[in-house]
């Protein structure tokens, strides 16, 4: 009996591959989305899905692209490079014309090779590791900015606008936050600031009171936190509860209204944020419309800056397909390299892409959280 069961189990396993993957669709444009729908980064991956899904549905409702409907193929890599390699292959097998993803650089790296080998057009919304665009992949692009430009902006802001002398920099050991922290430190020191405190928190933690106690004792003029909004909010809340009087500046990963909720209004007010312009401050109607539609659809705002970037990536793909009237990866890639200039992005102007696939320009601005918890553009900019 038990043997029978085992054999049945085995034969089921062996025949499964034969049933899977044999559907055939005609006349739709398939676009792939790879991201961490489960695992530790699920929050970002699920946001990718929400943002892109919204735009796909809108496009389809408006008659589709080139008269064809778009089919969104979503694959979950859980942020793990090995799974990323597998799902990249699945997307290739699904015959998508372009891919948005992955979230973290570690997952994007192996996937980008597979997309490149398959000749696919690939945009990452959020992977900032410099090495990704150094491999000469002609069809790989980023819509996010590299960390060093924001680092320069933050250093100038802290120096020029806040007139701080002794500053602290805090990151969360993620590659993104650490990169931004390192660049900021370098530029700040070039500008003659004293970086008297430089350390990292562990993002798995809930309690940051030990390090905040140290920060409070260090007598800083300003402290720059480069990590994510959840920890940013907890830092603000706990520093308020410890009664510390600190000038907090946050990086763009904390550009998220939820940070105010986590921190509590009183603790969040007066915090500065260096980030890409918020949709409400971008002059293009597309940006405001996206946020309004997102809020109407999901009853929440597009919280994370990376969700916006994922939506941006889809818009870029849609724009390229519309303009070239082609779904050929090579054509789309060449269009982005050569012709796509000065687009109205929902994350600010898109000047274009360099030959490696990095987004051009610097668009960072400084925000301040006001007494009612709104993000308003700081009157003084560096």
């Amino acid at each position, binding site marked *: 009996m*038990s*043997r*029978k069961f*085992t*054999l049945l*189990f*085995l034969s089921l*396993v062996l025949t*499964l*591959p034969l049933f*899977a*993957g044999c559907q055939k669709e005609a006349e739709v444009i398939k676009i792939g989305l790879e991201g961490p*729908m*489960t695992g530790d980064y699920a929050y970002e991956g699920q946001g990718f899905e929400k943002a892109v899904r919204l735009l796909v549905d809108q496009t389809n409702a408006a008659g589709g692209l080139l008269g064809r409907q778009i089919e969104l193929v979503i*694959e*979950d890599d859980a*942020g*793990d*490079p*090995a799974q990323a*390699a*597998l*799902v990249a*292959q*699945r997307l*290739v*097998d699904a015959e998508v014309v372009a891919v948005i993803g992955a979230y*973290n*650089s*570690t997952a994007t*790296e*192996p996937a980008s*090779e597979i997309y490149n*080998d398959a000749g696919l057009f690939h945009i990452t919304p959020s992977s900032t*590791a410099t*090495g990704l665009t150094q491999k000469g992949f002609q069809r790989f692009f980023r819509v996010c900015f590299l960390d060093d430009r924001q680092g320069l902006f933050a250093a100038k802001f802290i120096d020029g606008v806040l007139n701080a002398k002794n500053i602290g920099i805090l990151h969360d*050991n*993620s*590659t993104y936050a*650490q990169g931004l922290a390192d660049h900021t430190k370098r530029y700040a020191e070039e500008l003659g600031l004293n970086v008297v405190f430089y350390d*990292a928190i562990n993002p798995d933690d809930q309690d940051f009171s030990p390090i905040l106690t140290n920060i409070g004792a260090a007598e800083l003029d300003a402290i720059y936190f480069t990590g994510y909004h959840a920890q940013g909010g907890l830092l603000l809340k706990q520093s308020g509860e410890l009664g510390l009087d600190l000038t907090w500046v946050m990086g763009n990963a904390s550009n998220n209204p939820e940070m105010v909720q986590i921190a509590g209004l009183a603790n969040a007010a007066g915090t500065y944020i260096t980030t890409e312009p918020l949709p409400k401050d971008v002059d293009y109607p597309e940006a405001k419309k996206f946020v309004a539609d997102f809020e109407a659809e999901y009853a929440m705002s597009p919280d994370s800056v990376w969700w916006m970037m994922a939506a941006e990536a889809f818009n870029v793909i849609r724009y390229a397909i519309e303009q070239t009237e082609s779904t050929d990866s090579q054509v789309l890639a060449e269009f982005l390299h050569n012709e796509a200039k000065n687009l109205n992005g929902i994350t600010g102007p898109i000047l274009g892409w360099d030959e490696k696939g990095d987004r051009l320009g610097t668009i960072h601005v400084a925000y301040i959280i006001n007494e009612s918890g709104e993000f308003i553009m700081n009157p003084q900019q560096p």
Partner: protein
Amino acid sequence: MENLLTRLRQVNPLRWQLGLIALAVLLPLPLGNYYRSVLWRTGLYIMLGLSLNIIVGYAGLFQLGHAAFYALGAYTAALLNLYLDVPLLLTLPASIIVAALFGYLITRPILHLQGDYLCIVTIAFGEVVRLVLVNNLFGITGGANGLSGIDRPALFGLDWRQPIYHYYLMLIFLVITIFIVQRLEHSRLGRAWMYVREDEVAAEAMGVDTTRVKLLAFVLGSGWAGLVGALYAGKITVISPDMSKFMESVIMFCIVVLGGTGSIPGIFVGTLGMITLPELFRPLKAWRDAWLGFAMVTMMILRPEGLWPSRRVRLEMRGAKEVSLPTPAMDD
């Protein structure tokens, strides 16, 4: 069905073993790259399961930090490859040695701990390895993003970006692993392991050097996991500290126990259950974990000895019930 199996048993083992190998060689040929990668991944975890089986299955030691050694092997291979330009296949011995060495160093002082206390130390060690890699010790481990740009194996001028070559490379090592593990199981050392697992005090009384025997289990198992780590690095070309996370160790542990502790075919079944099936059930999306958990609970209730246990373990558990002895404990 039972008839068929009895008849199969009478067939010369060499013959059906060769048959299985032939099947494994032919299996990926009609499949696409995705399924070939899935097969590769299955092979990878079978090897990890077999290496952990030496520790958990044979010697009966609670090891919930096995992924640390897998990560150590991968990082050794990657560092040698990236900084010293050693070709990947030549880094394999170093990966084995480094992982085995750490296996020795970490377990030497804690071998006297009993079951669950040993378990927590191995968990702690796995977390320490992960955190040290994240914190970028000596500035060479690349922090949270890990290391990327690792060379693939270069052999016979093949295009090693194709998953199928990695599958065959894996298969070669898998066959070697199974051969070694089988020999070990029936060796003097293998019997000593099982003696320790069944009754440590009695084993010691019979003149088995239990410390040495347990240490050997850890060293061999860890070293072999290091080899698998290097093979992983050679295909994926990116490694990160997440390789050593607790979840990864948990999955390896489940592979060993779900399939049937101490049994080689059990590892195959366990890997199918923990790795291959969840991969093929991707359409379940976010509910995959829940189903996996449900399957784990159900399987354990229906077959606590594992899906394909070694004959010894099954007799112990099922046989014990028939003569209604008090609670049989496996690793006391």
